[in-house]
Structure formats: structure tokens, C-alpha cells
């Protein structure tokens, strides 16, 4: 009986001393973490995709709280949650946030099997990065899509799929959250995040070939040959030609589609427009 009492007293004493030490330590060495960080983190989607430019959702929450103390959270946005999540975050932090226009990943290559003949056979490791390191790939175009699907593997949101018929990846507009993982994964820098556009309608140059016209044309029927017709046609100065390649600035483009009509190689594409009826196109311009 006696030994039980002794044991209880000794253990109780140790526990009491340890409790005091722990209490003192927790007060003295406490690290203050802003409780708002945890609350912001709860609002974020938790995908840790890195699309915002930070290491993960928690890092973004920390950055948001830090910037809100400075007075503005402009420039930080969650591509996955979009405007909805950002407005919730802004409410929580007592900030206002300008809603950026929704974007979507765009594949700037139209080198389908039909447009771009295969001139050689690649037998190594089937990833775009490995093929890119070995040379121009199976076609004569040293700029276009290699078709091994590094972007498809990089997408965590199941928004990219390979079209077996064309050999090119396709973006599922409803699933794409513009995290930019595919943009980084593509060794040829074909994928670009562009404005989603009203009713998902977009006009873009579906080519990144910087070779001279004749060489580009030989490699791919649908290549941009840098002829400059589109730039002349455009009334809004949205089109620039650099290194034999046309580029449409989506902040200036008004979707009039005149460039689409005039492009001799059909390198400029218009997507999600209704079937061509002249009257409707005019309405679009007026709107």
C-alpha cells in the first residue's frame, strides 16, 4: 500500500513540475500566428497546385494576410477558386478585390497529323521533354507540339486530353482552372493562358513557328508564315508580327474575326463562335 502511495506522489510531483515548465515555455517561446491565416486557408481550395505562384495554399494565405496588412491584396489571385473564393477572402480580410477576367489555357499549335506530315520516327523515351532535347521531333517543325502529352500529365484537374486523331492535346474549358502547370510542363512553350472571352469566344494564332514563311509552310500546312496580312487587316492594333510570327493581344482584340478570314494558312482560329452568318458577326462587333 505504502509503495503505491510513494509512486503516486513521485509521479504526481514530476507531472506538476513538467506542467509548470511546459506552461512557462509555451508563454515565453510562443510563436504568434495570425489567426486569419488559418481562416483564409480554410477558404482556399486546398489543391496546392501552385497556380497562384506560391508554394501552396497555406503559403498563399500567409501572403494574403501579409499584403492585407500593407493595404492591398491586388495581384494575388487563386486561379482555381476564381472570383468567388477571392471575394470571400477579401470580405474576411476587409479588402476589395478587382475581379480579373477569367482565363483559359490555349494550345497554340494546329499541327495535326494531316497538316504536319511526320518525316522521321522517334524511338526513345516518350515524353515531350526527352523528345525536345533530341531535336525537332517527328515532324519538320522545330516549334510545334510534340504530342507526347507532358501537359496532360501535368494537369491535376483532368482538363487536358490527347486527341488521338489530331495528335494534339485539347483543353476542357469547363475544367481548366488556369493554374499554369501545363504552361510550365510544355518544353515548346505552346500553351498560353488567354482571356476566356465573352461566351467563351476567342480568336488566337494557333502556331508558334518562328521560321521563315517558306520553311514553316513546308513543315506544316497550317503554320503562321508571318505574311502580315492579319496585322494590316486589324483595326484595333491588336496584332503584332515578330520573328515571322503573328501574335494577337487578347486585351486589344475585339473578336471581329477579320484576321481569321484573311489568314492564308488558317493559322488564326476562332473558337466557340456560332456558324458563320454575316449578320451575326456584325452584331458581335457592335456589342
Amino acid at each position, binding site marked *: 500500500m505504502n509503495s503505491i502511495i510513494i509512486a503516486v506522489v513521485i509521479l504526481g510531483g514530476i507531472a506538476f513540475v513538467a506542467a509548470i515548465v511546459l506552461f512557462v515555455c509555451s508563454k515565453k517561446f510562443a510563436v504568434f500566428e495570425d489567426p486569419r491565416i488559418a481562416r483564409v486557408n480554410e477558404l482556399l481550395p486546398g489543391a496546392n497546385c501552385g497556380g497562384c505562384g506560391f508554394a501552396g495554399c497555406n503559403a498563399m494565405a500567409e501572403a494574403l494576410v501579409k499584403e492585407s496588412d500593407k493595404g492591398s491584396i491586388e495581384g494575388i489571385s487563386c486561379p482555381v477558386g476564381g472570383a468567388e473564393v477571392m471575394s470571400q477572402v477579401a470580405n474576411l480580410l476587409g479588402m476589395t478585390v478587382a475581379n480579373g477576367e477569367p482565363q483559359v489555357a490555349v494550345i497554340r499549335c494546329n499541327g495535326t497529323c494531316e497538316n504536319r506530315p511526320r*518525316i*522521321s*520516327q522517334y*524511338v*526513345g*523515351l516518350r*515524353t515531350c*521533354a*526527352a523528345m525536345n*532535347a*533530341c*531535336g*525537332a521531333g517527328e515532324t*519538320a517543325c*522545330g516549334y510545334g507540339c510534340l504530342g507526347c502529352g507532358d501537359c496532360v500529365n501535368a494537369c491535376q484537374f483532368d482538363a487536358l486530353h490527347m486527341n488521338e486523331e489530331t495528335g494534339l492535346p485539347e483543353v476542357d474549358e469547363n475544367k481548366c482552372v488556369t493554374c499554369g502547370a501545363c504552361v510550365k510542363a510544355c518544353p515548346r512553350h505552346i500553351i498560353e493562358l488567354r482571356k476566356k472571352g465573352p461566351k467563351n469566344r476567342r480568336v488566337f494564332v494557333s502556331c508558334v513557328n518562328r*521560321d*521563315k514563311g517558306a*520553311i514553316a509552310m513546308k513543315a506544316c500546312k497550317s503554320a503562321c508564315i508571318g505574311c502580315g496580312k492579319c496585322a494590316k487587316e486589324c483595326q484595333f492594333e491588336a496584332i503584332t508580327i515578330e520573328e515571322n510570327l503573328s501574335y494577337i493581344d487578347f486585351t486589344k482584340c475585339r473578336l471581329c474575326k477579320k484576321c481569321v478570314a484573311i489568314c492564308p494558312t488558317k493559322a488564326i482560329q476562332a473558337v466557340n463562335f456560332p456558324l458563320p452568318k454575316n449578320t451575326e458577326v456584325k452584331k458581335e462587333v457592335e456589342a
Partner: protein
Amino acid sequence: MKIKTFSIGGIHPDENKLTHEVPTQSAPLPTQAIFPLSQHIGAPAKPVVKKGDFVKVGTLIAEAGGFVSAPIYSSVSGIVLKIDTAIDATGYRKPAIFINVEGDEWEPSIDRTEKLELVKDHPELTPEEIVNRIKLGGVTGMGGAGFPTFIKLCPPPKAKAECVIINAVECEPYITADYRLMMEHSDEILVGLELLMKAAKVTRGYIGIEINKPAAIKLLKQKCNEVFCNSDYKVEVVPLQQRYPQGGEKQLVDAVIGRQVPAPPAIPVNVGAIVQNVGTAYAVYEAVMKHKPLIERYTTVTGKKLSKPANYLVRIGTPMLQLIDLCGGMPEDDNKVLAGGPMMGKALTSTEVPICKGTNAVTILSGDEARRRTPAPCIRCAKCVSACPMGLEPYLLAKLSAFKEWERAERNDIVSCIECGSCQFTCPAHRPLLDNIRLGKSTVMGIIKSRQIK
């Protein structure tokens, strides 16, 4: 006596030296020569000619674009057609100078006689003067990598050169260009070696040759005894056991003088050795003694299905297709055309690619020889580990690269990989080891570089 070789790893692929006893012929002049501006490691050369200019053989057409760079001279006479882009051995279009050939008019400064010039007859050749002439002659490593030769002769401040090793190993299957050069121009090579030793201020020289070339070993031993018997220079011909990749600088230093070069950024001169290819020694002789810049080279055109594989003395800038046609034309069916040999060569997507300073061979493999077998799962046999001449663990590096574990790959010395392909050659499961490692290596090197800039 045990024949020397390097201490770890290595493989012995089938030699297939089809053209060993085929004497070198001069290839006819091309109708159009193409000179890519990046034929060497380092900054691309800068063109100094413009469209319509008339150039002679040996006219400077592009000057060095930086310290690590080399000038390019025209190998033909004719009119500059354009400065445009051309597909080179990397598979991409790069800036290049196109020259339409007219006649064969040489710069008068080039000595075209056969007379053998000796170092002792030219007291004006100080080490600095030799290095300068090599630099001006646009001489780069002729074994494939194409590092400007003069830089190797100016070691970094802390390193001190003790010997020059001539790389006459030619361990790569199929290629015989260096062997033919040794058999046909041994005197010039030895003068070139003497010039290299004088420039590097050393007195010891070695010539490493694999024992599958007994005639070359015998010939060079005999010539060395004649040339260097009463001289301050001590030159030794070292026969080496056949083993790939003995022609790698680090392996050769290990094999010949038994010293191990540490991991990058260390280079052979850190252990006292300057390694130069035998073709480079010949080019050095011509640049210094004959004032002839690097405009021609020995190239083997080979392949089992070619009707007449041969060795050619070819003007730099000649399109490969022309050489293939000389050897009986492109074989039928699908072929893999390589700039270089089957182990280190670069697969080409176009036969319009010109012969560059570093193109030691054009190898044509039939589709069946070149096709890879389907990879199977790794069976952990560790054959790749035994084969790696750098003492790395290829199976691990390949896995780390595939999973993008760059930091672990760096800790496991991925940058030491010399991309010899021994691991992939030996893998019984046909795994794409080198494909993955090469990707990982370039990524890790990029990471290291960006860290240094910070």
C-alpha cells in the same frame, strides 16, 4: 604485363570497324557549303561576310563570338549566298552561312606543300605564339565535343599541367577516321604533339591507343623513337585494353597516368593532364606550321548496309547526303543516320546537315539495328552500376529524374554523368536510363547555374 585501362565500369560493344583498311580519299567539293555558326562549345561565331561577298578557301567568314568560342573559315571558294538558318546536328535550325562554290581558289598565305615542318626549324614559335596561332586557326576538339583547343592550353591559375595526352583511343564502334589519320600522317601528328607540349610548357607526352589498332601502335612507337630520341621531350605510346568509353577524357587520364579527375567543375588539368584528340594534334600542326585554319577533317562514313563505307578527307560544310551518295547512296527501308558513332552520335532528322568541325563519322544504322526493344521493369540486377565508368548509380538517377527529384539527383552527382550510354547498353530490361538521366542532368545543371547567378 597487364595492359592498362581505366579502373571502373565500361563495356565492350561490337567493334564493327568496317573501314579500318580503306585508305582515305579526298571527297569532291560540294556545290554548296553550309557553315553553322555554332560548331563548337561556347558562344556562336559572328559572321564577318555579307551576301554576295567572294571568299577563298581559308577566308575568315565568322569571328569568335566571345572568349569561349572559335572563328570559322571558309573551306571553299565562291560567293556567299545568304546568312540564314540551317538544320544542324542538334536537329534545330540555327544561323549558318551558305556559300555557293565556284572553283577552288586558296588564300595565298596557306602553305599547301607536303614538306614536313619541324619545331626545331622555327625558333620564332614561343608558347604564346603557338597558342595564338591555334586560337586564330579556329581549332577545336576534333573528337566530337568541340571545345576550343587554345583554352585547354591556358589552364586556370591553380592548376598546373604536367603532361599532354593524345587521345588516339577511338573506342567508339564503327569509326576509323583517327586510325586512318595516324596511319597516313603520323609525322605531322608527332610535330603537332610537340607543339602542344611546347605550348603547355610540359615535357611529358603520352599517346593512348587501344590494342585493336596494332599497326598504329607499332608505327607511332617507331616514329616516337626516331623523333624524340635526342630531345628534351619524353613521349610514350601507351597501348590500352579495348573498353568503351576509354576515349572519354576522364577515363583516358585514369587509364594512362592512373589519376582520377574529381567531380565537376574539375577538369583533367586539375590532375595535371591536358587531353587532346589525335585529329586536334594534326589540326594544330596545320594551323601553326602551314597557316591553314581548320577547314578540312577526316570523317568515316559507315554502316553495315552501305555498299561502300569509306574514310574521307572532307571540307567542313559539305552536306552529309553527298558523302552518303559517294558511299553508294542511302540504303533502302528505314535508316537511322547519326552524326558520330552509334554510342555517342546524334540522330539526325535531315541528311542536309553539313559536316562540322567535330563530325568524326556519319553512321547509318538500319531500322532493325537501331530500333529499341520494349522496356521491362527494372530487375535490380545492378548491371548499370557495374558498367558506369563514373561510379554512379544509373538506375537511381533515372528514377529520380523521372520523378523530378532534382535535389536528390544533384546529391547523387547526376552532373558527373558523361552520357556515354554504357548503362542503357547493358540494361537487360532495355530501360531508357540515359534518356531520363540526360534530362535530369540538364535540368540540374540549369538549377545550379541559376543558383550561382543569385
